[in-house]
């Protein structure tokens, strides 16, 4: 999608240029097969930091609109953008369906400098299709709540903000900023890391089910987790979810080195814990591998025996595009669940269909926030990705 400076247009010409594109596509169809349909389920804004990321976004749009047809607006903040003007570029992505219909989705790009965010926002306001949901996909690696005025300019136009915490350089600070922002706004926020965790949540829920390993969930006392580079936020969120579901509260967090982190959790007041039940704390160790993909690679959950039920453990490994569960009970076969690698745009397309907030995600990030707060400030500073 190379383009020269001459390809850019004034934003006031966007609608006229789109009309011309539609007329061209329609003309090509005349005498040919099928009809042309403008397909739009949503307005999707994609916020990008810099030219390279804007081009990356452009390359992701065809697959995004294949799964979720939308009018897509790429909002590219260019550090060295000349002047205050906003520059625009438009195109359409078409594909033919099995019945011969040509399905087309509009793609509009806006480029602007840091001082022109409000100016660019005014363009966006004029381009949103009425009566369709609007969402913002924050593709930038900066946490949105730490991006300042530029985020504030566009966020009010979105009913949902989709971001990805994988790759955040300072997870504790970012987690705190996002949870604070979410508490003061009604906009739905969604972290793509949460979607990546779905297979983990599903296999943990099934392999630790009380029908399979009675009492194990109440007796967990140790978790060890290994993740690849940039995947600490993923591990953080998974532990936040486990803690929130099992009633644990973080008491202490220590970053021993740049690649090892420990937490100690205290049990809550679960019904089976009532009457002075199980006082043991839960020890959690998180290790970062210096090579590999940004994934949770391995996890081991161990629980103690209690006289009636034996001690046990479960190991989980991400292998290929499956997460496999290896029970400590030799009578049981390993089980697995697909965890195929998904492109970002596929995950975003899937999330666009879910417009309501996810209460469980909100609970999980609340515990994540508590986990950040118990991390000693000097320790948090040593954390790297």
């Amino acid at each position: 999608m190379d383009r020269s400076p001459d390809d850019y247009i004034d934003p006031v010409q966007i609608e006229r240029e789109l009309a011309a594109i539609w007329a061209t596509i329609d003309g090509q169809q005349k005498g040919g097969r099928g009809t042309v349909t403008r397909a739009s389920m949503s307005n999707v804004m994609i916020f990008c930091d810099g030219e390279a990321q804007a081009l990356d976004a452009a390359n992701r749009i065809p697959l995004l609109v294949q799964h979720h047809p939308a009018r897509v607006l790429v909002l590219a903040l260019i550090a060295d953008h000349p002047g205050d003007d906003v520059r625009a570029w438009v195109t359409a992505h078409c594909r033919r369906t099995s019945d011969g219909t040509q399905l087309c989705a509009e793609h509009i790009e806006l480029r602007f400098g840091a001082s022109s965010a409000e100016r660019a926002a005014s363009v966006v306001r004029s381009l949103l299709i009425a009566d369709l949901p609007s969402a913002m996909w924050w593709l930038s690696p900066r946490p949105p709540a730490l991006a300042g005025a530029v985020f504030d300019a566009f966020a009010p136009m979105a009913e949902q903000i989709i971001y990805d915490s994988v790759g955040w350089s300072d997870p504790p600070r970012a987690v705190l900023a996002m949870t604070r922002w979410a508490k003061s706004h009604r906009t739905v926020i969604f972290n793509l890391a949460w979607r990546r965790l779905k297979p983990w949540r599903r296999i943990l829920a099934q392999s630790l089910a009380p029908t399979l390993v009675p009492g194990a969930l109440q007796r967990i006392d140790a978790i060890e987790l290994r993740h690849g580079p940039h995947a600490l936020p993923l591990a953080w969120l998974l532990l936040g979810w486990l803690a929130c579901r099992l009633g644990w509260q973080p008491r202490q967090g220590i970053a021993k080195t740049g690649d090892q982190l420990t937490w100690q959790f205290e049990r809550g007041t679960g019904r089976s814990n009532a009457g002075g039940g199980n006082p043991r704390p839960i020890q959690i160790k998180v290790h970062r591998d210096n090579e590999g993909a940004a994934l949770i690679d391995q996890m081991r959950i161990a629980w103690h025996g209690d006289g009636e039920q034996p001690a046990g453990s479960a190991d989980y490994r991400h292998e290929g595009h499956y997460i496999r569960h290896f029970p400590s009970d030799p009578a049981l076969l390993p089980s697995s669940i697909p965890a195929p690698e998904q492109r970002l745009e596929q995950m975003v397309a899937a999330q666009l269909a879910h417009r309501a907030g996810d209460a469980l995600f909100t609970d999980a990030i609340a515990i994540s926030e508590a986990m950040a707060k118990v991390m000693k400030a000097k320790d948090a500073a040593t954390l790297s990705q």
Partner: protein
Amino acid sequence: MNDIQFDENPLTSGLADKLLPQACTMVIFGGAGDLSRRKLIPALYNLALDGLLPTQFAVVGFAVDALTDESFREFAREGIETFSRRSLSEEDWEDFAGHLFYQQGNFSDAASYAALKARLEALEPQFGIPGSRVYYLAIPPSFIDTCVFGLHDGGLVAPADQPLPFTRLIVEKPIGRDLPSARAVNRSLKACFAEHQLYRIDHYLGKETVQNILAMRFGNSIFEPLWNSKYIDHVQITVAEAEGVGTRAGYYETAGALRDMVQNHILQLLSLIAMEPPWSMRADVIRDRRLDLLQCLRPIRSRDVDRHAVRAQYASGFYRGKNAPGYRREERVAADSTTETYVALRVFIDNWRWAGVPIYIRTGKAMPKRVSEVAVQFKAVPHMLFNTDTDHPLEPNVLALRIQPDEGMSLRIGSKLPGPKVRIYPVKMDFRYGSTFGDQSPEAYERLLLDVIVGDATLFMRDDAVEASWQWIQPILDAWEASGERWLPEYPAGTWGPVEADRLIDADGHAWRQL
């Protein structure tokens, strides 16, 4: 902090039920048969790819064919390669194949059930399956009794009143071939299973577009106020198949269009279109409303059958320019067959909402194209301001729900033609699944198998609904049986049906929709 309920599974919170099916084994009776190869195994494979099967899951094919686990896996692989909506990948196949097993057995032989039981009891602990089972009877109807009692007598049915392990039984249509035989089948089923363990499957209800009828009616505020006799003139339901009977002639000769399509698919469709609003989406609430509707169908007395029902057979004709044989010339069809390949009906629903609104139903084989739709035609405006020429009245508003193909819905409205004159022209507002949502929809069997695994019976037929639909059909069957007619009205293959069907609807001043 919330009080954590550890006797349930706190980790399942927030994960949809459909994402957390309970550990179980699926035993496919007739596992080496056509339905298994074409539909069931590909559906299970696609559910596995989506991570929707339980992690503790096994499939056991059970049939008389002499297969081993290995050859059953080959059979399954071939079915997936040929019929799955998604192609087979080696990594996914390796994982899926590890859950497939085969047990040879004779459905009539008690020893086969004992061997099946032993096999299941050996397999299930390895997978961590607590003995919960889904039995799928993918077998001819004549074997239902044998298999049901075989399972029961073989100790393969868990007590109905305990949550785990559970036993669920899926039974394919047809449930009987008339009211007495349907009752007999239900008696057999209920002698061995509780009603909540039974899943009578009608794959039509698994189609996205059929499910969308409820979403359209009860998820939008603009339709329901108009959904009654005050505003609706009539409804037309069309289920047309382009093909003749083909390889199904043997079965079709004993069934006919009324049994094959109307008694199940079309009456289920009608019940969704016309039922009263449910107060919740719980399975039994929806099924109660569907049953209510079936019980409101005005009985067609035997002496009135000719006024309300038309049957016909296709004769030789042309389909898309090619010669098409008549029904009696098809292989395995008797030369003097009186099996109907086409049915048209005029139906009334005797309740407050639908009083006086005719529902026209037509279904047939060897028609010009494959199309299923429900069209709701609204009444004319009370006072005509436009196109007052009575020879050219305004076209009425029509809401058409397209079930297949080209799934979606359209609303025909009148619009002013541009220009100085006031001329009204019919235009269509069109919603198409393919254009809007783009992605492939899951197959009906995927949805329905998953529903059974999670224990959601909403889209399955309850015994009372099956019997209510047979009860309504029975007088028509009896009248046709008693008529002794040797020749039915005919329609050329590749046309929309006999003139008698046109007369049926024309008598009310209506016409079949041009599709």
